[in-house]
């Protein structure tokens, strides 16, 4: 049985302008110790997917199923869900400065989480917090534990958040764009840290990001989302070496290449803008921006279908498998 199994997840928000279909039919499963990368632009629904699994999507109407160790998170009572949050499934967020309470010391916030789920003395919890800070590489943890969030640097803060998230050895860690707010060098450090901790604790990770480069190392499987819908699911190798969707191609092409032979090259962006989640385009949501658009794309929504021999590799596109392979090999891969 998979650790976390999400089936047909749908999340909608009522607004004055209409119903926002933030998430429209997402499926994935996560096994112990595995890493799933969820990739997409802003507004693709990747964050809302995970927030709604944890019951943190304020005001959203959530449908579908999210089985965690066999029990549906979406149908749990508040108390049951609270016992899962933090202890079984932990989450870290994009901006660690705004995600920590500015008025309380960092150590106190970690201790608060520990004591919410486990019975131990304040001193024991504090010692545990210091150990955790040491584990994530915060220097002088015995001093830093009494500092306030604004006294930490950005990377240090994110490490502290990671420490807090892993305090109770959760089965799943959901990392919502953990490196987006950090400098590139610090990014690499934090990703390294997450990988190392995963090896040590055996935590399953869901890594949400808009940057394909971030998941390149760490993800076992990748789910690409667009306009609230999943448009491609594959293992890491397939996504990078055999992608089967024009959007994924666009994402790969838009990664800037660094190196002398690439100077003077223009950046390759995907033309157009992400769609409004209230008024999605007809047919395939990506069709207004797709360089390979056909008539059928404007009328019929493509389903997630196997992309070849590999049954686990799914993509939602009307192009035939042969077409996709041809385009990838001849047109896109050389430019990547």
């Amino acid at each position: 049985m998979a650790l976390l199994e999400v089936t047909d997840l749908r999340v909608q928000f009522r607004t004055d302008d209409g119903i926002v279909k933030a998430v429209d039919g997402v499926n994935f499963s996560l096994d112990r110790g595995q890493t799933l990368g969820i990739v997409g632009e802003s507004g693709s629904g990747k964050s809302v997917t995970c927030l709604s699994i944890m019951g943190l999507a304020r005001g959203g109407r959530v449908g579908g199923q999210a089985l965690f160790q066999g029990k549906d998170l979406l149908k749990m009572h508040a108390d049951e869900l609270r016992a899962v949050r933090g202890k079984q499934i932990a989450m870290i967020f994009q901006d660690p400065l705004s995600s920590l309470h500015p008025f309380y010391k960092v150590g106190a916030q970690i201790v608060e989480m520990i004591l919410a789920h486990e019975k131990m003395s304040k001193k024991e919890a504090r010692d545990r917090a210091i150990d955790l800070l040491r584990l994530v590489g915060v220097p002088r943890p015995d001093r830093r534990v009494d500092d306030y969030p604004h006294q930490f640097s950005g990377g240090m803060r994110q490490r502290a958040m990671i420490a807090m998230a892993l305090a109770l050895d959760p089965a799943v860690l959901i990392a919502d764009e953990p490196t987006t707010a950090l400098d590139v060098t610090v990014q690499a450090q934090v990703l390294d840290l997450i990988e190392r901790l995963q090896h040590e604790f055996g935590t399953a990770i869901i890594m949400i990001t808009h940057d394909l480069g971030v998941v390149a190392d760490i993800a076992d499987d990748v789910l690409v989302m667009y306009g609230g819908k999943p448009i491609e699911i594959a293992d890491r190798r397939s996504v990078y070496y055999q992608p089967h969707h024009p959007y994924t191609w666009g994402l790969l092409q838009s990664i800037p290449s660094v190196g002398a032979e690439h100077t003077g090259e223009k950046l390759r962006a995907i033309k157009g803008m992400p769609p409004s989640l209230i008024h999605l385009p007809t047919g395939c949501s990506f069709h207004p921006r797709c360089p390979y658009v056909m008539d059928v794309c404007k009328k019929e929504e493509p389903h997630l279908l196997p992309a070849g021999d590999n049954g686990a590799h799914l993509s939602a596109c009307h192009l035939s498998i042969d077409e996709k392979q041809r385009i990838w090999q001849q047109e896109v891969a050389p430019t990547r």
Partner: protein
Amino acid sequence: MVRYIIRRLIWVVILLFAISVLTFSMFFLLPGDPAQQSVPKGATPETLAQVRHRMGLDQPVYRQYLNFLHGPDLVGNDKPSGVLNWPPNLGYSFRNEQPVLDTILDRLPVTASLAIGAAFFWLIIGIPIGILAALRPRSLRDRAAMGFALFGVSMPVFLLGIGLLYIFYFKLRWAPAPSYVPFWENPLSWANHLFLAWLTIALGTAALYTRMVRGNMMEVAGEDYVRTARAKGLTERRVVGKHILRSSLTPVVTMLGLDIGTLLGGAIVTERVFGLPGVGATTISAIAESDLPVIQGVVLFAAFFVIMFNLIVDVVYAALDPRVRYS
């Protein structure tokens, strides 16, 4: 932190000086001749000249200002009459025949009682209503709370005061006649006499606090750290009580300090309506009688309180918000 306080105290002194100049200038802007108003009708020009001399009105302006600040004994009561002397007399009122400071100090307990009592009530009325409203936005109780706030904010103080008096004293005879009973004479009677006055001030101010608390809480509820708190698996009670409230109530503390500081300068209208001999009532009388020293003294006095409470409030805020401390 200590350096911060010292810097602020220097500003306090500068501000008070500036205000003393302004207050003193009032002397020359207001109509009427203080000497003229201090002598009985039919006084001879010689008497008038003597009084002028006594009051130091025949001296150049800067001299008069200096006297105002650090005056000689102008009255012959062995007390120097300047602001900077000790005790700072804040001038001398010929009408009351006592130093202005004494006049104010006589009245201060009344105003202080009014301020503290009103503050107590507006806090226990305003804050809980604001919290309850914020916990269920757009519900019936939220709309009721906002209706209350609208009423409190719109209602003129004198109308509310007179209205309450009319109903509870005049018609129902539940409240005592408007007057003041000192605390040490009879605490129960003291509270009884002040109750309607407290309510009058409290209802209006509570409305402001309700709106502020509700607004703060709704804003804080959307903050990332509240989401983190929930993601940690904390109980809702803890999320609201320790995370949301802590951030929402900190600005309320600053408001409280400023409001009390301002009230200590005299709740003029309320004191008048309820017949309370406080600093505000003194101010009205002084204006009516053109008793300039008293007006000046009260202005300085009130300014002092407002400035000091501003400082206190800033220091308290630094104690509550660690981000402010280290800048």
